[in-house]
Every structure is written in C-alpha cells, then in structure tokens.
C-alpha cells in the first residue's frame, strides 16, 4: 500500500505547494500505515529531489525523458498510472492547480478510482474513504465519500501545514513505458513572464478594483506590492477594460487564490469576486463606501480613499520594517 504524490517541478525546482502535498500525503500514510511515494517527471537534480524526503516522502521515483519536458496530458497520465500500479497505491495525490486538474481526471479513469478535487483537510475516515472539499466556489464545503477501492485527490493550496520530518528517502529511476501515440498534442512555443511574483505562489497579494479609477493610477499600488514582495491582482472589470493584464484577474472567472494576506483596494466585494479570494487567511479592505460588501468578508478595514491611504500605508510598512 502507498500514497503516491505527483510532484510537478518548475524549471527543475519545487515550490511550497510541492512540500504541502508531501506533508499531506505523509499524514494519510501515517493513518493507514502505508508509504509515501513521490513521483517526479522531467529533469530535476537529485539534490532537489532529496528535499522531498524532508517532508515525509519514503521513496522518490524519477522519470526523465526528453519527450516529457512539457506537459502532454495523455503521456503524463500514462506514466503516473504505471507508477501508481507498480507501487500498489490506493491514493494518488495532485495539487489543485492547472496541472493537477489536467491530470487527475485521466488518472482516475485509468485506475477506476473515485476522484475528489480541491480537498482541504486530511480524510476524516479511510474506510469508507471520506474527505472534505470546497464546493460552490468557496461558498461551502462537502464531505465526499469514495465508493471505489482507490481514490485520486487534488489538494487545495495553502490548506495544510508543512511539517518537516527525518529524511530517509531513497531516489529510484523509474523506467516507465512511454508510447509515441500519446503525443498527439505538441507544444510549439513557450512564453514566460519573468521578474514578477506569481499570483498563485504569493504569500501576500495586493489587488485593485474599479475604485482605483484608471490604469494610470496603479503606481502607488505597485509601490505597496514592491515593498511587501507581493503579487498584484485585480477585479474583473479592471482586466476587462484593459487597465491591467488578464492574468491578474482574480475571482470566480479568474484565478482562485489563497494567500496569507489579501489587500482589496477599491473593490466592492461582489460575490463572484469573493469566490476567488475568500480563502485568504486575512483580508484587508480599503473602500470609500462604508457599506461595501467587502467589509463583510474582510478582517481589517479602512473607510477612505485608496489614493490617500496607499502611500501612507506603504510608508508605515517601510517604517515598521526598518524599526
């Protein structure tokens, strides 16, 4: 028996969410008395792979093959399934991110496993297998029971604590069968935005809405983000009107994020906006309208003009850091 975790890498490196996944898998494995197998696909140095052991991976399988340098769903799903079968895995774990969402359903079908996506807690029971997930775009939770022997899960980011353990991990090269017919899609070009904190990685997010008043007025918000090492986000009308690039749009129809701290600046707090940000640990709202719904979702609020408050806020944070 084992819990197998697909650990994605970004240019050969892991991220916080990779370690969250391993910590989560470790807790399931401890409950069921099974092992944690981490599966890495692509080129990652052994030093980096070994880090997964710090969070409880017993064994790290690595699959390196030129053809797997970019994500091809069918080929990846095949490799992951082969690894899960070889390791007699009852649980296959992914992150609830773009890659996890692309692969989990395919692997679930191959393994005839029930799939539960966006899980937020350790399963409350292993037999029957029952686990909590988010539903209605952050507005509720459901406890889902899996009827099949195996299960496939995707873990919602920032919902479990990372725990370090003694590292006993071994690294093993896994010789999976890779079939040419699985490569009917091909990646022709990759365009990366560099030098920006990614929204999906950020601990702190600074977000502006229509109350910012115009695209030329974003400098003070950018200054705050720079001071905090934060990522920048925006509401939907802001990206629809082209004030900000579409990849900054958060909410039900944009990115769903869960940072530790979210600044909602000139954002009214529409239900579709909150759907994407209400999992933030803390929300700070600044709005001229004391009745704006954002204050119902926020932990800390200031009624006032963003343009007056932003420079002062950045200044005070700088002072605190310098002190």
């Amino acid at each position, binding site marked *: 028996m084992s819990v197998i975790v697909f650990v994605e890498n*970004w240019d050969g490196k892991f991220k916080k969410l990779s370690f969250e996944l391993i910590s989560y898998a470790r807790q399931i494995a401890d409950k069921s008395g099974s092992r944690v197998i981490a599966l890495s696909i692509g080129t990652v140095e052994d030093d980096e792979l070994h880090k997964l052991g710090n969070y409880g991976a017993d064994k790290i399988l690595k699959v390196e093959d030129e053809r797997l340098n970019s994500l*091809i*769903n*069918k080929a990846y*799903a095949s490799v992951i399934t082969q690894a899960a079968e070889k390791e007699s895995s009852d649980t296959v774990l992914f992150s*609830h*991110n*773009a890659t996890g*969402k*692309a692969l989990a*359903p*395919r692997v*679930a*079908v*191959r393994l005839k496993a*029930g*799939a539960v*996506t*966006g899980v937020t807690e350790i399963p409350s029971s292993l037999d029957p297998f029952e686990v909590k997930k988010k*539903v*209605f775009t952050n*507005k*509720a*939770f*459901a*406890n*889902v029971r*899996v*009827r099949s022997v195996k299960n496939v899960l*995707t873990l919602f980011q920032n919902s479990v604590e990372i725990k370090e353990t003694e590292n006993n991990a071994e690294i093993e090269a896994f010789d999976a069968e890779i079939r040419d017919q699985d490569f*009917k*899609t*091909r*990646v*022709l*070009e*990759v*365009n990366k*935005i560099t030098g*920006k904190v990614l929204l*999906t*990685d950020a601990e702190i997010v600074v977000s502006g809405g229509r109350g910012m008043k115009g695209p030329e007025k974003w400098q003070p918000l950018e200054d705050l983000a720079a001071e905090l090492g934060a990522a920048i986000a925006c509401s939907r009308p802001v990206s629809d009107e082209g004030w900000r690039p579409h990849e900054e749009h958060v909410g*039900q*129809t944009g990115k769903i994020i869960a940072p530790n*701290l979210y600044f909602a600046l000139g954002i009214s707090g529409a239900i*579709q906006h909150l759907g994407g940000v209400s999992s933030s640990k*803390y929300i700070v709202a600044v709005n001229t309208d004391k009745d704006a719904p954002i204050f*119902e*979702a*926020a*932990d*800390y*609020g*200031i*009624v006032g003009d963003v343009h*007056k408050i932003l420079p002062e*806020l950045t200044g*005070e944070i700088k*002072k*605190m850091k310098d002190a």
Partner: protein
Amino acid sequence: MKILVCISNVPDTTTKIRFTDDDTRFDTASVQWIINPWDELALTRALELKEGSGGSIEKVTVVNVGPKESEPTIRKALAIGADDAVRIDAEPLDAHVVAGELAGHIRNNPYDIVLCGIDSSDYNGSLVGGMLAELLDLPSVSSVSKLNIENDEITINREIDGGSEILSTETPFVAIVQKGIALEPRIPSMRGIMMARKKPLNVVEAAGAEPLTEFVRFELPPPKAACKMVDEENIRELVALLHNEAKVL
C-alpha cells in the same frame, strides 16, 4: 467538422447557498439556473469558429447530462446559437456519471472537437473534460485560453503558471477551456429565442454510468468575525495589527 459543447446547468453565481435534509442536499428552492459561465464562453467560441469557417464547421451541438429540469438552460444554449442539443436523461450524480454518459453518446456520434469548461461552479470538480478524454482515449488540453482553426489546423493557447504555451493538436480532441476563450458570453437575441423553440433537443436514454463518489454532507464556512475597522488617520495601527495580531507582516 463538428463541435460539441458540454454544458452544465448550475445555480446563478449570486445564489445564496443553503442546504436541506440535514445538510445532505443542496436547497434548490427559488434558485435561478444558468449555463455554467465557462461553458457559455465555450459555446460562444464554438459559434465564432463556425461562423468564421466558411462552412467547414457544419454544426455546433450542445449536450447536457441531466433531468428534464435542465431543459430551460439547454434551450438558452440553442437561443444563443447552437444548432441542436442533446440531453442525456440521467441525474448528474458525480463527474464519473457525467463523463461516462457523455462518452457513451460521443462513441456513437463522433465529433472533431469537444469543448468543456475548466470547472462547474456548483461542485467545482474540474473533472468531466479530462475523464471524458480518457474514456474516449482522446488527447486533451486543459487551461485553454485561445482556440483557433485555420485550414483544419488547430492552434491552442494554454495558460501555465506565469505564462502561456502554444500547442498544436490532432483531431478529435477535448479542449478544457477557461478565461480568454471568448471575451464576453453571447446573449440570445429575440430571433434566437424564437428559433430555439424549433431547434431539435434530442433526449437520449442514459447508459447507466455509475458514480464513484457520493456527497454525504455539506457545510457552510464558519461565520466570519466582524471586520476590525481602523481609522483612516491611523494607518500605523493597521500595520501594527497585521504585524502583531495577524502576524502576516
């Protein structure tokens, strides 16, 4: 070429979420039903592609797995411009049922492109498109933000963490779409609504796909503590609270 758009019938995005029967069921009383926002964008793109294809795309079909109650939503898709519709008569108990029923239908009625949304705003599974592709042994591309067809060649933009990729694919395939696929969902015109009444909505018997999961109990998040208000003249206090109380700075 034929395009199939899979649509989910979901509560309006402003619905107040409530549960009944000891929190075992979603309370549908006075809920307004809509086409899942992603699926509506997928349909919009399918229609744009058809109109720009010079006739090489013959037809855009929508399909829903659901009971008779989802027919108004299906009619809306016809009013927006789909040529015909299929309703597979089954309770969409979980993603495995939905994908299984869709796969059964598509096996007998092949399409060149199948479009699904990245997630259904009710149970947020993000599963149907991928499961369907796997059941049919087709390639799938997820996080699709652009889809173009030129001389039968498909190009796709896929969003990745911190950027995007351009892909090509053979047909048939499944595209799982998200923000960017179309700018605004199309709104049905008066004429569209009139025509929708006459367009075929074929009801197909379920094949009997089995659920592998079961939603046993729902809960609402715990009520949030009241927002602490800080005076706008006292920004230093906010910073102190974030530092000492929330410990996030």
